[in-house]
């Protein structure tokens, strides 16, 4: 078995896992099962990140998405009991239009994707040769860290302000004195 075959096997495995997980989020009746299915999908996307040489992003995906965001969603489900009741209809009146619109979007995007010639075909490297070599040899985390701190320092600081806003907003909305 050649390395290319192995990559193809990994790709199809993760693709099947991601699509099944995503379908499970939408199709499953029990919301807790939807959360578990979403976690499967997120792990599959982390697998794609590893295949695409972005292992730092794969770790971030597992730490933030699976480790924190899904935990927060499970907490929100705990805090809303009626959500699980059997007699509640889960979908609204737009099931068929929603599916049609999404399918139309998918078909359009697919034709855009296959009809676009990306710059990859012209072999134009966007960054200097030494950086290409460095990103092959060095740790992916180091390269992302350097890029984040040296080139994207303003987005970095804005991210901290965004997190501050999330913290303050979340505490103000969710914290009440009468719970004590």
């Amino acid at each position: 078995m050649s390395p290319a075959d192995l990559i193809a096997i990994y790709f199809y495995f993760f693709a099947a896992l991601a699509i099944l997980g995503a379908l499970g989020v939408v199709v499953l009746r029990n919301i807790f099962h939807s959360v578990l299915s979403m976690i499967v999908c997120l792990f599959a996307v982390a697998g794609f990140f590893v295949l695409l040489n972005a292992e730092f992003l794969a770790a971030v995906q597992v730490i933030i998405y699976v480790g924190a965001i899904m935990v927060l969603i499970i907490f929100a489900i705990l805090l809303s009991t009626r959500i699980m009741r059997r007699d509640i209809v889960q979908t609204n009146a737009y099931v068929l239009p929603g599916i049609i619109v999404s399918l139309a979007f998918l078909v359009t995007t697919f034709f855009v994707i296959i009809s676009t010639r990306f710059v990859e075909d012209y072999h134009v490297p966007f960054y200097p040769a030494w950086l290409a070599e460095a990103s092959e040899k060095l740790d992916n985390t180091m390269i992302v860290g350097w890029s984040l701190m040296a080139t994207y320092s303003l987005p970095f600081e804005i991210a901290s302000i965004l997190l501050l806003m999330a913290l303050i907003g979340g505490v103000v909305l969710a914290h009440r004195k009468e719970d004590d």
Partner: protein
Amino acid sequence: MTDVPMFYYTTLAALLFSIGAVGVIVKRNPILIFMSIELMLNAVNLSFITYSRYLHFLEGQVYAFLLITVAAAEVAVGLAIIVALFRSKREVDVDAASLMKE
């Protein structure tokens, strides 16, 4: 390069995005709508990383990282709103949450 062609990844990202869009349009439960939005953000992340790898942009990874941060901030505030909504109205349907209109 012996690798999977790029349009496999981008098509997969489009597929995940469409599934998330179905969830956003169709579902009534606000938490499930939130999870579908996360799914769509994930699909965008996947295409960012794909372009970063195949077109040799380093920036795609930084964008994806910041996007994950934005998703985390959005979840913290959005779910707090949903929890507050549940607490005041005991209602599970987003279409019924029209407090501003009345």
